[in-house]
């Protein structure tokens, strides 16, 4: 998932944005899973990263997070809420980037109480963490 700057693979020119990537994921987690347990926060970060690796989704972190309609926190602007550098969402974002994945490879999650898309229910539920269902 992470590599040192790598001259021989197809993904070279992504910039040196480790700190920025953590910020971006942390903001997304903050908007999507603020009230969740720590595990639930890492899980949301892991889903974002799993999407980057999945051919059905955009191939970059920003592409996945800002994909139109993909995350409510992006649509309603909550992703722009500034976060405390010591808050748990930053730690959760780091754990997710370091490879911890409580969802074991899920690429979707939804809140059963608020999900409006019928399609999302056709997904197999792999795991429930807090208010979210996680699926593939």
């Amino acid at each position, binding site marked *: 998932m992470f590599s040192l700057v790598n001259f021989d693979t197809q993904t070279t020119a992504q910039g040196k944005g480790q700190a920025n990537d953590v910020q971006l994921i942390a903001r997304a987690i903050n908007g999507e899973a603020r009230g969740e347990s*720590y*595990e639930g926060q890492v899980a949301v970060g892991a889903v974002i990263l799993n999407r980057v690796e999945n*051919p059905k989704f955009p*191939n970059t972190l920003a592409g996945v997070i800002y994909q139109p309609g993909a995350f409510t926190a992006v649509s309603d602007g909550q992703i722009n809420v500034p976060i405390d550098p010591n808050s748990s969402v930053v730690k959760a974002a780091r754990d997710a980037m370091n490879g911890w994945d409580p969802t074991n490879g899920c690429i979707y999650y939804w809140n059963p109480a608020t999900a409006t898309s019928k399609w999302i229910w056709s997904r197999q539920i792999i795991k429930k963490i807090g208010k979210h269902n996680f699926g593939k």
Partner: protein
Amino acid sequence: MGYREKLLDFKRRLSDRKMYSIVFVVMAAIAIWGIYQYKHAANLRQQLDNQYNRAFYDMVGYVNNVETLLVKSLITSTPEKTASTLQEAWRQSNFAQAYLGQLPVAQDILANTSKFLSQVGDFSYSINNNSMGGKPLSDKEFKSIQDLHGYAAALGKSLDALQEELNSGRIKWGELSQKGPGVFQKVSANAAAQQFENIDKTFQEYPRLIYDGPFSDHLSETESKGLTGEVLSEEKVKEKVIQFFGKDRVESVGSTGKNDSGPIKTYSYTVKFKGAPEEQMASVDFTQKGGHPYWMIYNRPVNEKKIDIDKAKRLGKEFLAKHGFENMVDTYYLSEDGTAVINYAHKQDDVIMYPDLIKVKIALDTGEVVGLESKGYLSSHTARKIQEPKLTMEEARAKINSRIKIDSSGLAIIPTNFKTELLTYEFKGKFNNQDFIVYINALTGKEENILMIIFQRKIGKLLIIYMKDSIDKIYIPHL
């Protein structure tokens, strides 16, 4: 003055002509403000529409280019020319995929189209690498490109049709991105979405594509070599969880479900510790087969740092040995938030096995292990038959650019993006005060990889770019 008089007074003043004009001015101001707001919103909407149009038109262009390039690659006369044509196809399909992701169409509607574009790029890149070495296309590759070309042509055709609908105004982007409650709005949005869905249907029958690239279809099904032992019951594994944390520390363990999907099936538990606050629990997944720890997260506040990184590395190694992970060496670490995440790789006969990766997170106040991640190890660890290198260390070293000053070297097995392994010589060195690691294939002498390490003062030795690989395939050595 009573209320009644006040009211009368107000009425009297309102009937004054001046007051009427003030009310009029206020209303006019509100109207102007409203018109301004409306125009402003219309402007923003237009800007957004323009961006969607741009993304769409560009995407159509790139898809048409991919189609042309694929068919060209089939009829070029030399492998080198095939390579350069496919390289361009790789580039153009990457763009097409990126622009597709910007359209205001629900992800599920265009999922297969997106996958197709990812794979065309990935596949072209992998063949490009072979062709560059002078290898002509095999019959199978020729057939695959031919198939892909057929799909690209079909996609181009439907996109052209859609473009016409957009041009004639029958489809508006606004309809697709709005989720309003209006009945009519929904009907028209569905009609537009339907057009995209029809395009996506083209790819439902699209064949499995197997090649040497990270998006190849065979990768999700590889067996997990490190998963040894019998399949155990949830209760049996629970005992292992208690053992893992230590009987004297654990107050209770709760089961939170099981995960039967994917190559590594697991049970999930939460663990409560004696004397820890109610909400402060560890979450953990153990494998159903063999009851191995798969990942563990224990998020607790970390106090003042009392342990240095060398001690932490020792503690991590001891911890791993105690839980059955023998001969692990630390290869890289990252220290932040009062914790250290240390990577360990298995070592066999003095060769480092980078695919066999376990990450241990240690709290630097007490040295307690507060995190573990063993996907790499469980996926790939096995007693390997290590081949005899065909090059000596000196021969390999001679292949490296002489500008890099080499500090250390050794043998290592490294993973590729597509779950194969290579035996290499690993050289760590410096160029322009930057740290580099170079991998030379020990059998062919090919330079497989050059990595650059970027230091960031605050967080120690830091890794840099985000790539479309998964963590179990990438290893992060440290100097």
